[in-house]
């Protein structure tokens, strides 16, 4: 078994984007296990976010399959293949298209093991670009939120290349359906090109490693307030926290990394130390994962709090197209900063 390392090894300084890290992960897993294969729309040319670029050359069309536009069909197909011992990875062009296969996922995939009394298991990874990226409401869903309450699924939302690789490899080896949701802005690919975005680059060691699903990570230590954020919001929160540090405010930033299973203990430990919490997510405020976390804090850690639980999320509206409106809706650094400062005043 490989070691679990939550902090990157310092043996080399190799920097990758998230999509490069994911490609490395999928290649390693496909080499390791013949039952792993990838299917999705237009994945022979690399897929929407270049996740499958180069896979066809190495693994051939039998393990890298272009599907018809039939999400319910190929999700169901992947479920059946998984039941029979294969380990499919479905590459979605945008996570937003998964809703046409929703029944297959929440009614079939998530429940079949349970309903059958454990007769089957369904190892199946969904590669899902999530969040808003300037394309209007139908391409801007926070997919992870919509599946958050469904038992039987696991949900991962990595924010760094290091985490992405280690978590993806664990997802492929996991014997359950895993929704692997990466924010569209984080891949480090823009359309069919690699993009040089600082937030998407990071150290990824050459040696193989796994990160267990369900273990959060403190991305920045701090003592006065806990900020919980994932995906793109993690980067925004870190920027804010770092700026505040230089202004003399010590914020701890916790990245849950997985929404299901959720590392609630890590958050509670942090809140016990800081006695204040802000929860930041991109999705709509109503029914977000942040609501669940807030509810757990209100139940288990209320006695430690010196201030109300504050959430930063999108208001309850679809995501508008107009760039000015989109950035008004999606939580930005100034909203995160205000929230933190507001809480510190209480």
């Amino acid at each position, binding site marked *: 078994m490989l070691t679990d390392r939550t902090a990157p090894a310092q043996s080399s300084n190799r920097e990758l984007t998230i999509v490069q890290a994911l490609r490395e992960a999928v290649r390693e897993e496909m080499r390791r296990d013949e039952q792993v294969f990838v299917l999705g729309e237009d994945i022979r040319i690399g897929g929407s976010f270049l996740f499958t670029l180069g896979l066809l050359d190495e693994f051939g069309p039998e393990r890298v399959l272009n599907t018809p536009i039939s999400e319910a069909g190929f999700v*169901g*197909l*992947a479920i059946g293949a998984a039941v029979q011992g294969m380990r499919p990875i479905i590459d979605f062009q945008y996570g937003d298209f998964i809703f046409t296969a929703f029944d297959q996922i929440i009614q079939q995939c998530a429940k079949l093991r349970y309903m059958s009394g454990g007769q*089957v*298991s369904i190892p199946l990874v969904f590669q899902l670009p999530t969040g808003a990226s300037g394309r209007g409401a139908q391409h801007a869903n926070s997919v992870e939120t919509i599946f958050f309450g469904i038992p039987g699924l696991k949900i991962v939302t990595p924010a760094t290349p290091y985490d992405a690789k280690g978590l993806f490899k664990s997802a492929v080896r996991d014997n359950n359906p895993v929704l692997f949701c990466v924010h569209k802005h984080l891949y480090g690919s823009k359309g069919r090109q690699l993009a040089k975005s600082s937030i998407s680059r990071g150290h990824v060691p050459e040696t193989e490693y796994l990160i267990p699903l369900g273990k959060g990570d403190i991305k920045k230590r701090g003592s006065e307030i806990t900020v919980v954020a994932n995906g793109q919001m993690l980067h925004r929160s870190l920027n804010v926290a770092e700026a505040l540090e230089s202004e003399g405010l010590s914020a701890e930033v916790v990245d849950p990394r997985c929404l299901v299973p959720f590392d609630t203990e890590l958050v509670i430990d942090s809140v016990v130390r800081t006695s204040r919490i802000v929860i930041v997510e991109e999705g709509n405020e109503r029914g977000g994962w942040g609501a669940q976390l807030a509810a757990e804090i209100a139940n288990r850690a209320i006695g430690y709090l010196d201030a109300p639980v504050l959430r930063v999320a999108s208001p309850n509206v679809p995501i508008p197209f107009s760039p000015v409106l989109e950035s008004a809706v999606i939580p930005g650094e100034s909203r995160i900063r205000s929230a933190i400062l507001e809480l510190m005043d209480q």
Partner: protein
Amino acid sequence: MQELSIRLPQIPDIAPLEPFDADLLRAMYRQMVLIRQFELKVNELFLQGIMPGTIHLSLGQEASVVGACMALEADDVITLTHRGHGQALAKGLSADSLMAELFGKETGCCRGKGGSLHVGDMSVGALPALAIVGASSPIAAGMAFAFKRQETGQVALNFFGEGTVNKGDWHEALNLASVWKLPVVFLCENNLYGVSTHISEVMAIEYVAERASSYGMPGSTIYGNDPIIVFQTVMAAAQRARSGGGPTLIECLTYRRGGHKRDDPGAYRPREEVEAWFKTDPIPAFRARLLKDERFSPSALDVLEEAVTATIDAAVDFALASDTPALTAALEFVYAD
């Protein structure tokens, strides 16, 4: 393909039984009787208020499911519908574990967690049933995909009703199976109704099998109350699938003896139609046919039927005597390790 009426049954010429092995014929008959008696018993238990849940009986459709499953190998796999007891028994599920499942007992095939709508047993090649109309078709295609990729020579058979073919999942599955030439047989039990709704109200064509052409796959409509016709047709389709020829769509014309589910009297069906179809009851018809063959005697069939009765009674005893699951079982099997 013989011209069949979509409302009234047209029984095709009866094929002679001689070419068929007596064991095969006996097994066919036994399975049909097993299903019939199982379902009648379930109905009785339900009326007595002993059996929990909701029940969709497959009375009248025994020939289609038995003919189809007997054409498969033991390691071939079927997917089942909400009307799945017969399909499960036909594929070899034990009456004990099926009955126990219906009672929600720990000894049930799904440890009591599935119930009537989700029966199945992977060890006999019956994927626990999916009760959402259309959902099983892509999953059957997926199992076939694995068989093809793993070169196991297995075949998947997808059971569904005629009401299912207007569902998107079904369409997507047939298309995918065809494009990737998957070893799957799509088997429609066309009993003319989806709940109370006649096929002619929900499709502007007469037969389900006509849709095969949209996917470039062969399709045929057959008389589904003759297990031999079904057996032969499915056998050919399974062979085609196994040899890389891809999927086939088979439509078996048959009829429910009862309503859609236990509380449905089925009053929406015209009396003439009901009467005509009831006369085609596959079990007496097959029994009569067997008795025309000198290899079978009434007394031997009586013995067989009595043995089945004993099996069913034993299944009820087994189920009633079994424990209900421990409450902690509710938290098990959400995730695999």
